[in-house]
């Protein structure tokens, strides 16, 4: 059932891609490995649960609410924990991000308890037959929402001025400012978008796996980071491709009977890809001009 596995892989990959997109955007601009990104995704999932269970909202409202809440959170985190470190060594904000991550994870454990919470039913899941494959409603929704969000993002970055400003700021804050770019705003904007995407990913994954926990962000963040690097740092189509690649590789690895080595397979592939394309799948090769 290769096509079925492929579909499962793509669905998984689409959620990786959503998280990876936020990762790669932030990463592309301030070269920060935003360790707290996974935690934002986790919080997004919890906001989704809250909206559905306490406020009795439907999927769309919950999704938007989670995205908004995480936008605010992402921007705030950047203000407090990363902005003061913008001009220090690259690894400094990484450590601060790890601190934020520990903080958020512990805070969530305090608030919601450490147990996983089931995602309350928002859609009645049905299975559809599509030729040789079965696709569930959740899968369809994930694929649609993810594609829409990615298309929207692509549009912003490619055709809207702020997209170009992002690239300029990613190279040189000062010179970008000398072009009249409000660098702080660009960075806040990036965090807002990135966090919103992560929140969307959180809600969708929560629905897909029917489980939300304070610790769900750790591995997801890691996978997203890998997907972002695999695709090529800062490359938005790269993050999508990287996410899909990782999702499919994992699923097919399992399908091929290498279940125990699932993670190892994904990472081995990743290393092999990097050895052949040292700047990721869609990363521009480094130019050695001196």
């Amino acid at each position: 059932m290769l096509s079925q596995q492929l579909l499962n892989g793509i669905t998984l990959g689409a959620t990786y891609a959503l998280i990876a997109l936020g990762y790669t955007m932030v990463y592309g601009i301030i070269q920060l490995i935003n360790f707290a990104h996974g935690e934002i995704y986790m919080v997004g999932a919890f906001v989704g649960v809250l909206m559905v269970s306490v406020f009795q909202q439907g999927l769309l409202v919950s999704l938007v609410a989670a995205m908004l809440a995480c936008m605010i959170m992402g921007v705030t985190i950047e203000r407090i924990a990363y902005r003061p470190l913008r001009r220090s060594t690259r690894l400094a904000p990484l450590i601060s991000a790890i601190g934020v991550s520990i903080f958020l994870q512990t805070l969530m454990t305090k608030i919601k308890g450490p147990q996983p919470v089931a995602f309350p039913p928002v859609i009645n899941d049905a299975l559809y037959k599509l030729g040789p494959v079965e696709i569930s409603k959740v899968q369809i929704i994930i694929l649609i929402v993810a594609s829409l969000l990615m298309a929207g993002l692509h549009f912003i970055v490619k055709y809207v001025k702020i997209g170009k400003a992002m690239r300029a700021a990613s190279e040189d804050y000062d010179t970008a400012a000398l072009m009249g770019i409000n660098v702080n705003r660009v960075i806040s904007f990036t965090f807002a978008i990135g966090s919103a995407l992560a929140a969307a990913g959180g809600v969708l994954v929560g629905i897909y796996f029917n489980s939300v926990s304070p610790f769900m962000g750790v591995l997801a963040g890691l996978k997203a980071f890998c997907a972002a690097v695999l695709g090529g740092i800062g490359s938005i189509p790269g993050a999508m491709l990287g996410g899909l690649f990782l999702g499919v590789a994992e699923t097919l690895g399992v399908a091929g009977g290498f279940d125990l080595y699932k993670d190892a397979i994904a990472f081995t592939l990743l290393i092999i890809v990097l050895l052949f394309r040292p700047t990721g799948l869609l990363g521009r090769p480094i130019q050695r001009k001196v």
Partner: protein
Amino acid sequence: MDSIFSMFLNDYYIQVLTMLGIYLIGALGLNLITGVTGQLSFGHAAFLSIGAYTSAILSLKLHTPFGLAILAGGLMAGLWGVLLGYPTLRLTGDYLGIATLGFGEIVRVVFLNMTITGGALGLAGIPRNTTLTVVLLVVILSVWAMVRLENSRFGRSLVAIREDEIAAEAMGVNITTAKITAFAIGTFLAGISGGLYAHLIQYLNPSDFGFLKSFEFLTFIVLGGLGSIPGVILGTSVLTLAPEFLRFISDYRMLVYGLLMVFMMIVRPRGLLGGVQLRRLFAKKNVQQTGTSASGGAN
């Protein structure tokens, strides 16, 4: 020696200090790779685990003497450091980071599935040979070695690579050899650290050496001050002791710990002792020394 320690310190402090020492050895190794040479490694825990399992298995299965087992663990980790380093060190920056991270996860999964390592059940019953005295000796030896390296022709070439690879190469530094040597030494220390860990905790489980552990080591050296040996010592101490000192706030411990990391980083963006090198602490003295010896030579 250990009995002298236990006269002044209770077992809890001894345990905590021993653990600190073990982490310090690993952190010094990572500092050489990442802090001094500038090569990002997110897979340091893997080398700890290689050292830990190697030495533990030698102790358990072959009853290898303690010192020998530890050394073998270090060498095995160093060997894998070279094997990994050879193909991946041509990657730069985060791409190298990811490759090492991937390696770390692969190692973990492999240990999880090997029979000799006990798989997911872990490896128990390792003799408790690691004492504070042993660890202290190794720490002193490592610090001494690192200070010597830092102030040598070899150490300088590593820093040069960190600062500007192209210029270093143009000045005649064989960057591949230098990087691999740094990797070998750094991972060797990780292996030693892992071996001591195994013989202290007496139980090994692959899940204890995941990527979070690797990032923990990175935190030690960045917060202390990349490339600074006093910084590594301070950073590792603060971060391993803080969770213990913070026990009095009980339930808010990890919340505070997380905030503390953010706060310390914001206050000292280059790390607690960023840019401080042992040699520079004594810089004045040194300059005078070279001055006198130079003039002595001229006479």
